[in-house]
């Protein structure tokens, strides 16, 4: 009868094993947050496209162009808080057929008197179309440095997968421009 062991019998080694197991659980949970939860979140976002965050560059693919299915693609440009640049799409909307390669440009100008670096972060709506929206070239893959007063036309080349769900007729692609000058300085100062 295990429950009728005496007090002393229970104590011997008992506390030690409880403490060790509990501490292992604590360390395990801590590790799980950093190497489990965070990568899991990013993977889920990537697989499902939930956040509309499109990922890296893809190769140009030889899709059969679906001539009879025009998709409206709208472009939005937003400045994050305190970002002083002028930032806008050169065309607000294009009609793209699934499969074809489309090029558009965004305009950015550093209106300030100091050299700055920016990073554009994309978001796609509806998010279900994220896995079908392939970018072969995008300014969002790289950071964009601009000297004081300088301006630039930044290119975006994309291709819509013909497997795009039928109900999608309009895709909105939004870019938010972040000022990362400080992070750049920190990073370049380190090595």
């Amino acid at each position: 009868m295990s429950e009728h062991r005496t007090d002393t019998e229970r104590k011997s080694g008992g506390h030690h094993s409880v403490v060790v197991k509990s501490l292992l659980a604590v360390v395990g949970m801590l590790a799980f947050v950093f190497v489990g939860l965070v990568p899991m979140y990013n993977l889920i976002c990537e697989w499902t496209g939930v956040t509309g965050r499109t990922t890296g560059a893809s190769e140009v693919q030889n899709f059969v162009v679906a001539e009879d299915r025009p998709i409206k693609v709208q472009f939005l440009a937003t400045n994050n808080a305190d970002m002083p640049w002028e930032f806008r799409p050169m065309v607000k909307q294009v009609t793209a057929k699934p499969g074809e390669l489309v090029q558009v440009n965004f305009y950015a100008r550093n209106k300030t008197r100091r050299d700055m670096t920016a990073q554009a972060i994309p978001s796609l709506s509806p998010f279900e179309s994220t896995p079908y929206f392939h970018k072969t070239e995008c300014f969002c893959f790289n950071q964009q440095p601009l000297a004081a007063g300088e301006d630039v036309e930044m290119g975006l080349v994309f291709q819509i997968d013909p497997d795009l769900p039928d109900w999608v007729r309009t895709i909105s692609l939004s870019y938010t421009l972040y000022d990362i000058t400080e992070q750049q300085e920190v990073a370049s100062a380190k090595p």
Partner: protein
Amino acid sequence: MTTATHDHDHAHHGPAKGITRWLYTTNHKDIGTMYLWFSFAMFLLGGTFAMVIRAELFQPGLQLVQPEFFNQMTTMHGLIMVFGAVMPAFVGLANWMIPMMIGAPDMALPRMNNLSFWILPFAFAMLASTLFMEGGAPNFGWTFYAPLSTTYAPPSVTFFIFAVHIMGASSIMGAINIVATILNMRAPGMTLMRMPLFVWTWLITAYLLIAVMPVLAGVVTMMLMDIHFGTAFFNAAGGGSPVLFQHVFWFFGHPEVYIMILPAFGIVSAIIPAFARKQLFGYSSMVYATASIAFLSFIVWAHHMFTVGIPFLGEAFFMWATMLIAVPTGVKVFNWVTTMFRGSMTFETPMLFAVCFVVLFTIGGFSGLMLAVAPADFQYHDTYFVVAHFHYVLVPGAVFSIMAAVYYWLPKWSGKMYNETLGKVHFWLSFVGVNVLFFPQHFLGLAGMPRRIPDYALQFADFNMISSIGGFLFGASQLLFLYIVVHTIVAGKPAKAKPWDGAEGLEWSVPSPAPYHTFETPPDIDKAPQLDRKEP
């Protein structure tokens, strides 16, 4: 080994004299007392902040404080009440009662017990000191969502982060201690399924703490790295995501809300049978219901974030999983009501608080069920309806259960009986105060008043004034509580070893006040017939 020698050293005399008794103590009763007084001090501090909030909201417009300070008040009120008042109070009760309930001489790890208490005052001194810093105290809400708590945080956020680290370490040590005590130090014959429910609920709570306090520590560490070391966990510009913060936070935060209510279930399950003079109905179903609630708490976190943009299937899953929690909770409420059914009930102060807990906690549960409905939540999200909901489960829920526990066990702790009339006055003032305070907030929320704002549109004025009056009444009646407790200790009439007719459990088999050392030789459980859990 340490415990054994310690017990022998002190077997024939009482505690050491002076301040060192409290600084160096490894006695579970001393540490429990310190936890309870500390939590009461934090309850008054957090309550003061709440009074500032309610005073500002007494009328529309800005009267007393600036919006920046108002935000610091809501943040500090939440943090202090959650981590400083409710959690340490339950740990204090665990320290006092668990060894006495299972027939153990002390906690399993007495020195760690001392450490886990004594780091708490430092954590909260550090947190409270941020009020006097340049840039003010944390102002981002107790949920400290990024980027409010990272990019836009006041400089004092670093002190907040370290304070949370210390609180987390304290809670983890306390939890490990409780698990070791319950698993290893039960008296012979005290099988798991004969343990009082307070011990059971604390065992499960302790496992929850061990599982999720590291998650809290992890999330504040990520904040620290984002703020000071250039990482980008929660910064979209660097490839991170602020939504990630909410997921990690609520993965901790939802089990946390059960950490604050499961021990309350245990307390109520001890008090209701005592004053209904009947055995608790459905003991084993209570145990399984508690375990189910604990399990479900890990898979419902995203119901706090229905509006951030979760796919349809995700919303549906988290909605149904959340509603599922109503089943084990309903089992508990059913059992409490059935325990009272046809019992010989009397309504002394602990019973008043316990019965009130059952009713008002259930109201809080029902508004929780309303919030769980994802499409409806789009309307309720971040309104006063949410404030009303979680205050109903935390104040007349958790806090009332702690007060019930204090009235119920105070005769055992102090050896003195409290003044029953004053206790009842305290109960009725608190009961009326809490309902006048929080019930109108349901209407405010449904009408669309957002949370965390210092000023509001005119149509919300009447209900806010009523709510504030209730707040002042509730706040003031807690001073009466302080008076009652101090008066009992100083001038109460001597209490019997078992002052309550129908009370069950080993703690009533020792004299009142409980001697400094109890159960140095384990009691014989099999000769304590009131512990026999055989159900009819």
